[in-house]
């Protein structure tokens, strides 16, 4: 039996853009990085259902309610695709959920902000899903097969999310003065947190090195953020919304927008648990999980009983 240089095989695949699959040999740190990133992504999808769920019973029409329900159901599905991808790396979903509840695993900071008015549902779909799409489109080319395939599936579903949000904003901007004010207020509160979704500037992003080398991450935080800004400014202008950044201006030389300073203190505060809704998001999740325990146990008990019957 000849000796296989596993690391070399792995690195050659990465170099040639051949996906790594679940049973392939991979460096421990590659596996760890993926578990952290994919589970954080999965938790974000699931926790992200809360700010929107807040408005299901208060949606302004039956049409709006049906759309919002479908959108939130999609996000639950996205969480499941991603847990499923993480599990191919040899970790169980119960363990991933435990890590979330213990505070060892994070979720996207954006979901620690409250959804105060109906316009926030518009802003979330348009800006938060919009930012997520830019990131996820890039991740379709990530080097780990199951993660990449989950991203492809997710991206197919996301454009409806962004469009329904933008439609809400457009309708409100075409409405009464009070509705326009409400839409602009939501814009003002969500713009900066949406920019923070892409993470720290490239110059001080702690995880980037290996993630780029191993092609888990295909484009840098700043590149992705710039993409998002460049396509969103025009959409805001079309419906008459103002981007709450006095320093935002077109840079003819680089053919994209320059933007103002991001408040990284706020980012760190929220990440460290001091955002407006951190505690509420986590206690809701824990409560739902605990209240589901008897259901999971009952179904397991029923299944065990059926198996016993068959074997008798």
């Amino acid at each position: 039996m000849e000796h296989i240089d596993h690391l070399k095989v792995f690195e050659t695949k990465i170099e040639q853009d051949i996906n790594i699959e679940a049973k392939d040999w991979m460096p421990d740190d590659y596996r760890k990085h993926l578990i952290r990133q994919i589970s954080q992504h999965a938790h974000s999808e699931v926790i992200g259902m809360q700010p929107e769920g807040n408005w299901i019973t208060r949606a302004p029409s039956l049409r709006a309610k049906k759309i919002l329900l479908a959108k939130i159901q999609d996000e639950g599905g996205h969480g499941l695709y991603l847990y499923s991808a993480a599990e191919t790396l040899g970790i169980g979903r119960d363990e991933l959920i435990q890590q979330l509840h213990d505070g060892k695993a994070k979720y996207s900071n954006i979901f620690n902000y409250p959804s105060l008015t109906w316009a926030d549902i518009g802003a979330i779909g348009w800006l938060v899903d919009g930012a997520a799409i830019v990131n996820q489109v890039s991740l379709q080319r990530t080097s780990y097969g199951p993660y990449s395939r989950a991203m492809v599936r997710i991206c197919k579903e996301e454009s409806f999310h962004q469009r329904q949000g933008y439609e809400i904003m457009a309708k409100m901007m075409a409405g009464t003065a009070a509705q326009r004010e409400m839409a602009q207020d939501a814009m003002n509160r969500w713009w900066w947190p949406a920019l923070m979704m892409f993470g720290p500037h490239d110059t001080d992003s702690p995880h980037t090195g290996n993630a780029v080398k191993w092609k888990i991450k295909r484009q840098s935080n700043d590149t992705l953020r710039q993409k998002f800004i460049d396509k969103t400014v025009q959409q805001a202008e079309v419906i008459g919304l103002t981007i709450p950044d006095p320093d935002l201006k077109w840079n003819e030389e680089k053919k994209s927008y320059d933007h103002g300073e991001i408040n990284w203190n706020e980012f760190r505060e929220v990440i460290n648990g001091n955002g407006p809704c951190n505690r509420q998001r986590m206690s809701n999740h824990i409560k739902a999980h605990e209240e589901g325990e008897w259901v999971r146990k009952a179904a397991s008990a029923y299944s065990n009983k059926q198996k016993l019957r068959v074997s008798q």
Partner: protein
Amino acid sequence: MENVKDTQWPIWEVFIQSQPGTPYKHAGSVHGSDKEIAMQNARDTYFRRNEGTSIWLVPTDCIIASNPDDAEMFFDPSNDKAYRHPTFYTMPEGALNI
């Protein structure tokens, strides 16, 4: 029920056929305590927009996969048999429909 452990249930691999007549394709996995619940979960997770007309479910631990380390050796025997492909053969000039 007291002695049943709280788990996320066993995992099942989901294969979907997008249209009658086409091959089944792996979509991902779901958790389910038994095949009925796994089937419901597969429908809710992977079929929200006419993704297909049929589902196959297989318990994950029943999947037998080839070993990636052996791939080269294992799939090698089919590499050097060009005569298994139609382009290997020389057809006489002027012959039609072959």
